């Protein structure tokens, strides 16, 4: 009887120590509180070489901690949909005009970095950062893993709006996101 009680107690203790969520052993996405309950909407500008496309980007974190995003132009025509999960970026939809292997490769890489080092670190951007001296989210010079020198991700806050910018000098791609306030949406 005593042995059973010990077993049950141990089982209860172990259960109570189970991590909050464990969708997979290699799960890498942290909880991003800003997008965990409601999607966040950004005014988005994508500059690719000499081409400039504006629109809206919605980003939200799902219950399995994957981070999903949709980019649409002002008229509602979708540019792309992505899901970032377990450290991997998946472009689940891309509009036919952009459906080129090279474009997809660059977008996947840069969106992956934007989510990993920008969206995931939204909470690190403070009002004290300005457009003149933004918070550099990537690269962190103290982190030897941050070795993609052509890519910079920075952010700042102004009038309660979060500004996030990725610049990829190698492929001349810039993604600018400016969060929208609830009364604008």
């Amino acid at each position, binding site marked *: 009887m005593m042995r059973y009680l010990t077993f049950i107690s141990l089982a209860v203790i172990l259960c109570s120590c189970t991590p909050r969520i464990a969708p997979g052993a290699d799960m890498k996405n942290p909880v991003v509180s800003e997008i965990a309950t409601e*999607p966040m909407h950004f005014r988005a500008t994508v500059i690719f070489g000499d081409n400039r496309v504006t629109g809206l980007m919605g980003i*939200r974190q799902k219950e399995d901690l994957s981070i999903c995003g949709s980019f649409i132009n002002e008229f*509602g025509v979708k540019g792309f949909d992505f899901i970032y999960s377990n450290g991997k970026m998946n472009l689940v939809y891309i509009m*036919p005009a952009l459906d080129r292997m090279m474009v997809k490769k660059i977008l996947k890489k840069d969106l992956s970095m934007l989510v990993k080092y920008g969206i995931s670190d939204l909470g690190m951007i403070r009002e004290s950062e300005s457009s003149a001296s933004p918070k550099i989210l990537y690269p962190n010079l103290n982190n030897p893993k941050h070795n993609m020198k052509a890519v910079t991700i920075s952010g700042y806050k102004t009038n309660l709006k979060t500004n996030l910018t990725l610049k990829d000098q190698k492929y001349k791609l810039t993604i600018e996101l400016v969060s929208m306030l609830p009364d604008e949406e």
Partner: protein
Amino acid sequence: MKQIFSVFIIILFASIQVDAQGNTFNKLEGSLKETFKNNLYASSEKITSLECTFIQRQTLSLLSDEIISKGTMTYKKTERLLWVYKAPYEFQFLMNNGRITTKSDGKISSFDSGSSPLMKELCKIMVAGLKGDTKSLESSFETSYLSNGSQVKVIMSPKSKNLASIFKQINLLFDASTFLVSSIEMAEPSGDKTTIAINNVKINGTVNDEVFDIH
């Protein structure tokens, strides 16, 4: 006999559609369809200018989300369309005789509509939809007409592969008596949908040419 009856029932139900509001739409065929098309076209021919407000709802299925935009549209013969978004942020789009100009965040860019087939087609759909000139879209879309008595829904399916890769289906909803458009619904292959509700339509009012100057 039983089989013939079954086929009749299937055909009858296949020609009936029920929309989200529960309205039952029956397919217009033969002379009824031709009469409506001709009346719609005749009405569109009389339109020299059109001003309206709109509310655009874009569903994002991946995010279980909806983005709402609001603004105004101004059309003036021939082929000038100004689309002004006022919320969630200001954005202007002008189609002026084959030239597209946009203004976003204070930045103006202008280009030939031929360089953006998507925008050109979108403008064509919007102008034809606003005016009610569905005949001009028949070269690009298979169209069918349905009515619930007070409204006529025009269902358009793209004919070309290129267009079908952007639009799965476009539905235009017209008032059956005034022939004015009340909504434009665009379904994408991805499953997302954009619905533009058209309100406060003013036909043939004075629209100054200066309205179409973006600076």
